[in-house]
């Protein structure tokens, strides 16, 4: 625990999400046809926060509920057989669907790219978006697939043995991004971690 160091704290995370919301709007030239889909657990909360900021910045963007959803990728993962069986997250698509719209996938940590690969597959089962973009709070490198993010909160060069953990108010009771070294206990999350283990780099998945 001694060398588990916070790299981002609540005010910085808040500023980053505001910036990402503005970047998304700028890139899309407004909020037309936008859908934000967060990848559970923490990506879904981040997507909602970005959507709230987006609506605040662009009042014509419409109600948050029609802008934001969640996309569970568990059943499309390529490492299901390497881990104990996982609970499923919620997939919720806003009423207008994804066909011919611009989908922004939102996740907390981008590493191997395998989660995003699974998300692209899951998305193609829901419909055919006009374009798909990717926004992440932290990009920690170690890519194993040819995938990059369009909107990055913070680039965090890390060693493969280190663990990056995103804590969010909605799940963990506080906002922070923490790096802990190899062999250390992970910082205790106040809420049950559950599927958050997905974000651990230990298995080499991310």
């Amino acid at each position, binding site marked *: 625990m001694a060398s588990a160091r916070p790299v981002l704290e609540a005010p910085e995370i808040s500023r980053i999400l505001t910036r990402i919301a503005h970047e998304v709007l700028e890139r899309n030239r407004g909020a037309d046809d936008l859908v934000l889909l967060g990848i559970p657990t923490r990506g879904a909360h981040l997507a909602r926060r970005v959507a709230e900021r987006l609506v605040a910045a662009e009042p014509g963007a419409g109600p948050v509920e029609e802008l934001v959803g969640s996309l569970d990728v568990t*059943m*499309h993962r390529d490492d299901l057989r390497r881990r104990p069986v996982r609970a*499923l997250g919620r997939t919720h698509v806003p009423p207008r669907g994804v066909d011919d719209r611009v989908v922004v996938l939102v996740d907390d940590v981008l590493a191997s790219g395998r989660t995003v690969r699974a998300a692209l597959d899951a998305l193609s089962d829901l419909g055919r978006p006009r374009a798909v973009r990717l926004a992440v709070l932290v990009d920690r490198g170690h890519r194993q697939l040819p995938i990059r993010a369009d909107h990055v909160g913070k680039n965090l060069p890390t060693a493969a043995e280190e663990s990056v953990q995103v804590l969010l108010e909605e799940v963990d009771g506080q906002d922070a991004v923490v790096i802990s070294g190899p062999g250390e206990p992970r910082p205790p999350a106040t809420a049950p971690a559950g599927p958050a283990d997905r974000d651990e780099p230990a298995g080499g998945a991310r």
Partner: protein
Amino acid sequence: MKHLLSAADLDREGALALLDVAEEMAATQAREIKKLPTLRGRTVVNLFFEDSTRTRISFEAAAKRLSADVITFSAKGSSVSKGESLKDTALTLQAMGADAVVLRHSASGAAHRLAHAGWSGVGVVNAGDGTHEHPTQALLDAFTLRRRLRERSGGDLGGALDGARVAVVGDVLHSRVARSNVLLLRTLGADVTLVAPPTLLPVGVEAWPCRTSWDLDAVLPEVDAVMVLRVQRERMGGGGFFPSAQEYTRRFGLDGRRLRLLPEHALVMHPGPMNRGLEISAEAADSPRSTIVEQVSNGVAVRMAALYLLLAGEDAA
């Protein structure tokens, strides 16, 4: 989860986790593309030693929606009719690379035997063994009840069955559905009352975690759901369980009059296939409070969840 043999194998947490996975599976079944890649490369064998239409088709649909390969094996026209034993059949299936076996058998305990005799390492799902258990039917009934009764618990699915009152009416003696339902509903916090003539209650029923009654009219006004069981005449041999079909219907059949004894919100359930006019009248079966068709579609989602939990993880066979 290595096997699903009995509703008693599931504790409250495990049962709720399975039902939550089933909720997500049900959501995928409302989409245009219903197929998921999750069990690609896995082989599920449907091993049916006893006739069954809806359970077999339901398991087959569930496995195919998850992209597993399905081999269906029914006793008619197979080596079983040439005298092959369950053990030899199991060894054959393992040699062919089965990852899970869905077993329907006329002998109580057959699924347990297949899972624990050490013949093979495959996962086993009990799809009905004799008059013993049918856990996926109980799970789909609980799933249906939970969805329909959730408004009364403030929208919370987790505690939706706490304190719910369910009557299970009819041929409990020959019913594997009744035993699995009593066990599972109790685990989920519901109060179950069995209503049947004494001849159709099994020996030892007083040890089950439920009440029993012989008076349907007295029970109906108190319940949130009534689950009508099929009178299994094919298991009754020479008869003698009740004087006549007419008398059974008069005492234990769910007809229009009894339908009106139920509280406003109460549901009518039946695991199918129904004997219309015997244990349930057409008016009751086709009424808006009947969930009978819904139970069938929920069955696919629940079986997808069971196969997912059995086969998707690293500890799976």
